[in-house]
């Protein structure tokens, strides 16, 4: 009897397990992890600072309000308005880049995308690796290329920090262009490679936050919800067990 119950259970678990390779495979491109931790307030603050110094010139965060940044990043209204808001927007308004759309098209061939949801659409790891992978490429219109997102129309906004990277090409197969083997720093920037990885991680973390500000709340609330539900389920088990004594006794 127990055997049968267990076989039922095993079947159910088996069905669940059958789906696991599917989930594992969903990861897709195996980019190195950014190691982002969206709960790290200091990292978020550094990332915000980088974003508002190097990115907001072209990219908006149209779903993110300055006031929400202040609450979620533990910053005061004055800190946000003086250190992050350079466009004269009101405290309650969203982060809109001041770059005119027309000139953006002229300069880069397309509008710089809104980055609010970038981390959800492309992944935090993608952003991190993308930021690390710019290199000089005179064949491209803006003079830059990227190994993670080949032929991106965006120049490296952080080159002052990272320095100038160039590509080292492998041996070209006949009829094909040589693949990029690795990237090297040709001219150092203000940051060491390790520091720059930290900066890219902070920016990726910040964009992970902007993609889902609720992530900050849901995990801390979730712990209590789960604890409560486990306790309730245990009580319900005891209740079920108690009532079912009637059934087990009468057969």
């Amino acid at each position, binding site marked *: 009897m127990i055997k049968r119950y267990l076989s039922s259970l095993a079947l159910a678990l088996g069905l669940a397990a059958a789906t696991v390779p599917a989930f594992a495979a969903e990861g897709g491109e195996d980019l190195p992890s950014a190691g982002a931790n969206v709960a790290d307030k200091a990292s978020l603050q550094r990332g915000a600072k980088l974003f508002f110094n190097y990115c907001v010139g072209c990219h908006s965060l149209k779903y993110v*309000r300055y*006031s*929400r940044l202040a609450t979620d990043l533990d910053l005061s209204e004055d800190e946000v308005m003086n250190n992050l808001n350079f466009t004269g927007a*009101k*405290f*309650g*308004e969203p982060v809109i880049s001041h770059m005119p759309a027309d000139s953006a098209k002229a300069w880069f061939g397309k509008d710089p995308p809104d980055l609010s949801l970038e981390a959800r659409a492309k992944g935090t790891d993608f952003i991190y690796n993308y930021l690390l992978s710019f290199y000089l490429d005179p064949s491209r219109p803006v003079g830059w290329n990227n190994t993670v997102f080949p032929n991106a129309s965006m120049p490296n906004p952080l080159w002052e920090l990272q320095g100038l990277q160039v590509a080292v090409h492998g041996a070209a197969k006949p009829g094909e262009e040589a693949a990029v083997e690795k990237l090297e720093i040709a001219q150092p920037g203000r940051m060491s490679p390790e520091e720059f990885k930290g900066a890219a991680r902070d920016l990726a973390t910040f964009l992970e936050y902007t993609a889902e500000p609720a992530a900050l709340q849901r995990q801390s609330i979730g712990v209590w919800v789960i604890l*409560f*539900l486990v*306790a*309730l389920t245990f*009580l*319900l088990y*005891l*209740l079920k067990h*108690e*009532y079912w*004594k*009637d059934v087990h*006794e*009468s*057969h």
Partner: protein
Amino acid sequence: MQMGEVRFSLLYVADAAVTLPEFAEADFQSKPANGARILNGKVPESLMANEEVVDHGRRRFLTVTTAVVGGAGVIAAVVPFIKSWEPSARAKAAGAPVTVDISAIEAGQKVTFAWRSLPVFVVNRTKDQLAQLKGLEPRLLDPLSSDAAQQPKYATNETRSIKPEWLVVIGLCTHLGCVPDFVPDIKPEPFDANWKGGFYCPCHKSRYDLSGRVFSGVPAPKNLPVPPYHFIDDTHIQIGVDPQEAG
């Protein structure tokens, strides 16, 4: 033996009554005879055993405990749904203080501004109009603005304002929320032969004086509310912020 059967039934009724009265009454009060027939007057051992196994105190305790804990969980789960009706971040941002330029408002003129989507009347009252406020007290419901909810402390005066000539009120009738008409001229009106200027609500004929004080004998119960506001300089006021908050 029959006694045992009956006793068991009663016990069960007492227990089931906690969770389900219909079940207990419908089944057991009408059917002991049937039960006895089927069982041929013999109580199976398993039924005898039940009597000892069922721990009614424990059962009741568990039922009540799970009901209380589960009920608390349901209430907690309802809270987010109720909270979702609160003004959203967008509504709050739109309801932020607004700064308005009043330099273009001439004497005797009223301009309406939007604050939190509410119409805010800003009236530049003339000396003449201000003088009329004095004699109206006997005809008003609350001439001294005693209802503290209707205006901030700094507007609890005869002119209901910071600067005497500048009236700032929310232009919604305190009766049912229509927007009253601004009727500034001191002359007999169809609705009031002795009109000294003020606001007249077209919906249910409530009347207010030029300080937004309600007349007695009209449906509206309260004076027009004064929002928090302060003067940034002589020609700009900010609606939504008290003077002391603005420093």
